[in-house]
């Protein structure tokens, strides 16, 4: 290295070192002598240190420290991180994507659009093109995310509690099935829920073909057993019935809660409310409800008659007789039936008589006969081929399985979904029988009561995790596409399990569904058909065509004699939210207040005020309820509108192995339910218990105290006095203030809620919870009145406690222009936006709670503890990234979904235009089946919300307080039959 020689510096070491060569013979030799062995060692920088210059030292130290820091920057975290090396196409972080799929609700499909943030499904909305909901959604499809992300879902394949691999299962299967296969499958049984998936049906058929002696059982504890039995009796075949409420002027519900729960209720509620508001709300349909407990539909009725379960059959028979259909000649309900018959006959072909799914087959048969006599068939009542792949008498089917199991005739039992150990009729001894089965396999989302008793458990994929298909109420088929890879490796779909049985090693669900439809579609361009069907969320024109069905036999003879009144009658019905118990571990549904009682986390024993007084029960009295020697413990809830001398209980509670939320919530009414009395029984007995068991309700006070909360009147009164609402209102003039007037120049966001339309289905409440990351607080905190729902539906009763009228009032934030909350916040954590929103700045909030005290509607919710779960990983996936996750000590409230507003405003600004009407839908509005909630800019008079606010029925709740709410209500109208008043 010649350079080092050139600058003439000779290191001391070089000169004194004995190994160096101080002598040279020629210049080249000399250069070589002074060429260091390791050139870098003597480079300028290296040498400079020995110069010991303070400046050099400091600069080098600084440099090396900085470099050390840089190496720190390149350190990788110890945990596994996911490099985003190859970003998926078209994914922009922060921009959600939407996919159409279908959610199984009440055993049938509901079309949904799922919002996905970077591959995480975060919110479910209705599919606007799907006939089951037309864009709205039910509580169950809204809440399905809690099932997907449930941390208690089963994660591993288990054999007698020991984790196993999929391969190990298949080996075990081969071993167990070999002797059975030799007998053509005798001793091999499959138990499923009601199967409405064509692919799954085909698979089961294929399995049955492979094992001809095997049997397929179906059991759905809350399925339409009566409807099937009645269809067989009336038409001789198991037709599917659905109703078109949009063309029904008169609706008679015989114990059917068709607006708020049950099959197709989302669509029914929509159609019903459309018909209820025709011609500027002056042309209303009329709803008569005869029911055995107080339901959301009953509360909406223009005339409601509470009758015990068994009396409804007699009522139907009398009504049938009044309509000229063979029925009953007795005249116990003549006041009602005569008037009802006249009203129905005046609307032939434009009325509906709908029997409750849990009513007796006789009521269903009578309803078919009456609908036929009224000429409704094909107009408002549509019959189609059944939705099920194979309709069977499920009770008989399960009874046979239980009997065979107990007789030791079942060797291999494959249970796909369902939870029969928990919900089989109490007289079947299903659990004991299961213990005699050599190899029993249960596939389910949870390791539940049935999994505990089976030898094998296979975790099932959630419908958002794997492919599938299902039919909707009218037969429309949706292909279910997954939004996310299965969260747990052990999870398999029912399709995969059956496929593995058919052929080793089995295909993926995608292959199975696609193969089935490529054979079925009959379309030349299958790929295009497939893409369109998956994209749209439904297969075009796949609805089942109406069939001609005429009652072939006369209605059955009059019902049996009335039971003695002293005997208490009990009726069972699937829970509005828990359904048959499958949603027990869904915390959103657990904490969703029951529509009529506002109870959370529990079911209750419903008694009428009179019966409770007769039995000397206070509300929430803890009792032992026994029926034929079987008993359960529960608390009494005095329910206005419950028929006297009757008890109503809801199924689906009292699970003991469902997970952290469902275990121990409520009591298990299945313990009382036997196969001969599926829906009602007689002779209930009570025993008071000393241990108190409090029930957690979110609304302590269900009477309006004469206050103008819900303003209502009849449609006839409205026609005569169109301004009756304004006459009851006093709104102070706007200039009664010293403050200058504020002009909202840009947008002025506002909300209108139509009380006539609201049916109290609570879909909005849970949609709000899902959209806004609202925490679940648990029963103890609900008892302490700290439930966090930003939006609630208040249920009020009016009139005689035995036969009350119910009113529903959704209460979000009123977004007052003169907001009382803003004034009193000491740190300006709640402020008014230029668009009229009452904004809440969580980060600024110090938690004085003064704003809540000053809110007349008490819509503000406070994080008294750390309510939000900050640790459970799966729940983090669900959270909406557009909404802050609130911490302890902070106030929160409805924001009108400000994140959606901002998103639309930004989009509009980029496109240089105003936000269009309807472009922003609040979460509650989007979910609402009846379109009771309309959001928009009230500065533009052409907007829907402005038009609604200009209507005569518009009012502000407590306008006299002069808070100038942006949320306004449309007074409720009802359409009572004038004949009933005479």
């Amino acid at each position: 290295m010649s350079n080092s020689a050139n600058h003439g510096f000779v290191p001391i070491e070089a000169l004194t070192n004995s190994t160096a060569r101080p002598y040279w013979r020629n210049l080249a030799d000399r250069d070589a002598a002074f060429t260091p062995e390791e050139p870098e060692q003597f480079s300028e920088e290296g040498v400079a240190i020995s110069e010991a210059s303070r400046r050099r030292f400091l600069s080098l130290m600084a440099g090396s420290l900085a470099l050390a820091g840089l190496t720190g920057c390149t350190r990788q975290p110890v945990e596994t991180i996911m490099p985003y090396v190859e970003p998926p196409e078209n994914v922009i972080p922060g921009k959600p994507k939407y996919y159409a799929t279908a959610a199984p609700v009440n055993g049938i499909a509901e079309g949904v659009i799922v919002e996905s943030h970077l591959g995480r499904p975060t919110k479910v909305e209705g599919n606007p093109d799907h006939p089951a909901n037309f864009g709205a959604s039910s509580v169950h499809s809204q809440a399905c995310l809690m099932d997907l992300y449930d941390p208690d879902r089963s994660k591993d394949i288990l054999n007698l509690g020991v984790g196993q691999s999929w391969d190990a299962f298949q080996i075990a299967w081969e071993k167990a099935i070999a002797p059975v296969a030799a007998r053509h499958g005798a001793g091999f049984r499959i138990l499923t829920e009601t199967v409405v998936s064509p692919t799954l049906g085909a698979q089961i058929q294929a399995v049955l073909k492979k094992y001809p002696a095997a049997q397929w059982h179906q059991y759905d504890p809350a399925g339409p057993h009566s409807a099937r039995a009645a269809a067989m009796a009336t038409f001789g075949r198991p037709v599917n019935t659905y109703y078109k409420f949009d063309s029904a002027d008169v609706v008679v519900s015989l114990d059917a809660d068709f607006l708020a729960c049950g099959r197709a209720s989302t669509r029914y509620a929509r159609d019903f409310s459309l018909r209820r508001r025709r011609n500027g709300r002056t042309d209303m349909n009329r709803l008569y409800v005869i029911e055995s407990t107080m339901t959301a539909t009953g509360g909406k009725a223009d005339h409601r008659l509470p009758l015990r379960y068994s009396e409804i059959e007699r009522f139907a028979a009398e009504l049938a007789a009044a309509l000229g259909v063979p029925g009953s000649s007795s005249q116990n309900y003549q006041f009602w039936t005569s008037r009802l018959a006249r009203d129905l006959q005046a609307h032939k072909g434009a009325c509906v008589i709908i029997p409750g799914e849990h009513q007796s087959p006789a009521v269903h048969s009578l309803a078919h006969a009456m609908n036929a006599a009224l000429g409704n068939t094909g107009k408002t009542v549509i019959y189609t081929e059944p939705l099920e792949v194979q309709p069977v008498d499920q009770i008989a089917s399960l009874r046979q399985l239980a009997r065979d199991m107990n007789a030791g005739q079942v060797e291999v039992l494959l249970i796909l979904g369902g939870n029969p150990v928990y919900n089989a009729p109490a007289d079947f001894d299903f659990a004991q029988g299961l213990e005699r089965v050599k190899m029993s396999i249960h596939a389910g989302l949870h390791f539940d009561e049935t999994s505990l008793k089976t030898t094998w458990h296979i975790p099932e994929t959630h419908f958002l995790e794997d492919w599938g298909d299902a039919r909707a109420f009218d037969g429309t088929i949706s292909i279910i596409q997954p939004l996310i890879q299965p969260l747990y490796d052990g999870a398999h779909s029912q399709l995969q399990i059956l496929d593995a049985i058919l052929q080793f090693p089995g295909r993926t669900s995608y292959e199975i569904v696609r193969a089935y439809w490529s054979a079925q579609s009959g379309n030349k361009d299958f790929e295009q058909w497939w893409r369109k069907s998956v994209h749209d969320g439904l297969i075009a024109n796949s609805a089942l065509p109406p069939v001609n069905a005429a009652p072939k036999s006369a209605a059955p003879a009059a019902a049996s004699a009335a039971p003695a009144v002293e005997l208490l009658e009990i009726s069972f019905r699937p829970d509005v939210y828990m359904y048959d118990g499958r949603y027990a571990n869904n915390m959103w549904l657990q904490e969703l207040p029951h529509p009529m009682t506002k109870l959370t986390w529990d079911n209750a024993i419903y008694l009428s005020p009179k019966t409770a007084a007769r039995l000397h029960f206070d509300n929430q009295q803890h009792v032992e309820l026994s029926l034929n020697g079987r008993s359960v413990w529960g608390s009494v809830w005095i329910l206005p509108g419950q028929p006297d001398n009757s008890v109503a209980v809801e199924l689906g509670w009292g699970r003991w192995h469902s997970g952290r939320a469902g275990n121990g919530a409520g009591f298990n009414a299945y313990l009382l339910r036997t196969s001969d009395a599926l829906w009602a029984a007689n002779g209930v007995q009570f025993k008071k218990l000393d241990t108190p068991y409090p029930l957690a309700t979110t609304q302590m006070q269900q009477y309006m105290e004469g206050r103008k909360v819900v303003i209502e009147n009849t449609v006839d009164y409205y026609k005569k006095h169109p301004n009756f609402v304004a006459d009851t209102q006093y709104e102070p003039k706007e200039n009664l203030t010293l403050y200058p007037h504020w002009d909202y120049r840009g947008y002025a966001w506002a909300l209108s809620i139509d009380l006539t339309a609201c049916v109290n289905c609570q879909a909005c409440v849970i949609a709000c919870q899902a959209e806004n990351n609202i925490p679940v607080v648990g029963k103890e905190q609900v008892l302490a009145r700290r439930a966090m729902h930003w939006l609630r539906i208040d249920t009020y009763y009016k009139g005689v406690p035995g036969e009350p009228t119910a009113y529903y009032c959704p209460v979000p934030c009123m977004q007052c222009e003169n907001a009382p909350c803003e004034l009193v916040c000491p740190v300006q954590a709640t402020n008014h936006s230029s668009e009229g929103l009452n904004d809440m700045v969580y980060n600024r909030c110090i938690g004085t709670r003064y704003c809540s005290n000053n809110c007349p509607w008490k819509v503000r919710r406070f994080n008294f503890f750390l309510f939000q779960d900050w640790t459970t990983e799966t729940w983090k996936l669900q959270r909406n990234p557009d909404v802050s996750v609130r911490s302890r000590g902070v106030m929160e409230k409805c924001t009108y979904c400000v994140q959606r507003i901002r998103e639309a405003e930004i989009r509009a600004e980029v496109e240089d235009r105003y936000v269009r009407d309807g472009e922003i839908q609040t979460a509650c509005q989007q979910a609402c089946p009846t379109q009771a909630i309309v959001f928009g800019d009230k500065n533009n008079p052409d907007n829907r919300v402005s038009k609604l606010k200009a209507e005569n029925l518009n009012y502000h709740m407590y306008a006299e307080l002069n808070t100038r709410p942006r949320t306004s209500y449309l007074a409720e109208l009802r359409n009572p039959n004038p004949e009933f008043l005479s």
Partner: protein
Amino acid sequence: MTVEERAPIEERQRHADRGLDPNNPLRVVAPSTTFETVSEQISSIVLTRKVPLFWWCAFGFGVFLLIWFIIAITWLLAKGVGIWGIEIPNAWGFAITNFVWWIGIGHAGTLISAFLLLLRQTWRNSINRFAEAMTIFAVMCAGMFPLFHLGRAWIFYWILPYPNTMTAQPNFRSPLVWDVFAVSTYFTISLLFWYLGMVPDLATLRDRATSRFKKGVYGIMSFGWRGASHHWKYHQSACLLLAGLATPLVLSVHTVVSFDFTIAILPGWHSTIFPPYFVAGAIYSGFAMVLALCIPIRAVYGLHNLITVRHLNNCAKLMLATGLVLAYTYAIEPFTSWYGGSEFELALVHNRAVGPQAWAYWLVILLNVVIPQALWFYKVRTRPVPLFLVSCVVLVGMWVERYMIIVVSLGRDFLPSSWANFVATFWDNATLYGSVGLFITLFMLFVRYLPMISMAEVRELLPFSRPGGGTEK
């Protein structure tokens, strides 16, 4: 014939036994009192006399409760305000009730020390010191509650206007911000006034101290007071100035506290009568606390010659007067509701009287209106035991009154669907009684280590300090 002369023989004898003038027990200072005896009597409590068993018991009790207070606050900070019974709609519960109660109690001290000073009510001289101490400790207890009732107490200072990087300022329209100013001003002025008044007495303690350590401590605390005439001159004018500053606070602080409620639109809170109502209530409860403190201490330390029947009588009369103001307010509230005709106000009156928490209303009427009518009787006003009992009744009554105003109004406001009854938890009670413990502990430390009666000011009352040599009547 004066009222006093009508007193029965036994009572005259009792007064005489306690060194009082049996013919005129209402004299501000007992006849035998001299400069020397005053200094000796007061300073010996701190310096030489054996600490009485009463002190140990009271201090121990106070510390026991204080420990609970510390536990309760620790748990509160660890878990959140949810450990209390507050909920929606009752978002305020015991904490704000306690705050208003404590701050009200403080008012009597300021009234005695400042207001009465300006009014030349010389009888105040012998009770103003501990009344003022009571004020300071009560405000300290009061201040705990708005601080710890916050959901996020650790950022309480956001309520203060200070320059910060967020450029965020408090909302000056909020009465809670006014509260911060009112209470902090009140505390500052009270503390200064109290301490300044104590400086000459601290010098006396320094001079009489029995050990070097005590001498040093009291010496530092007395700021080199030598009793020079210019010291006295400046001291007097400083005291007068502070009294002038403190006097309006008697009226303003509780007025501002009442704004916490009146500014809100809640029925039961939104009322123009609240400022005088709250001030009267504050003085009412404050005098009750003064009596509840001074009666046992007077007995234990034998201070009958300095805290005479005159003091008891005067305090009782003030209680009676302010109690009547309260009674008037209680009567006028239903009237204005009826006259105003608002359905919400009418419902509130109904709810208070027969609602689920009607016990609170009727307890208030009983404790604050009915029982204190006993104060019309001279015998009740001048006898320590009945007066002590009435004072305790009023203290409890005033707490329940604040509870009624806050909780009973919140529980049933506009929208029936949100109605609910407040249920206190263990931790609610722990903080309430714990704060009493804090107060007792501080007060007992004050009694033990500081001159609880102003020696300097009592000396002013004696004949020798007056130009004519006449005794203060």
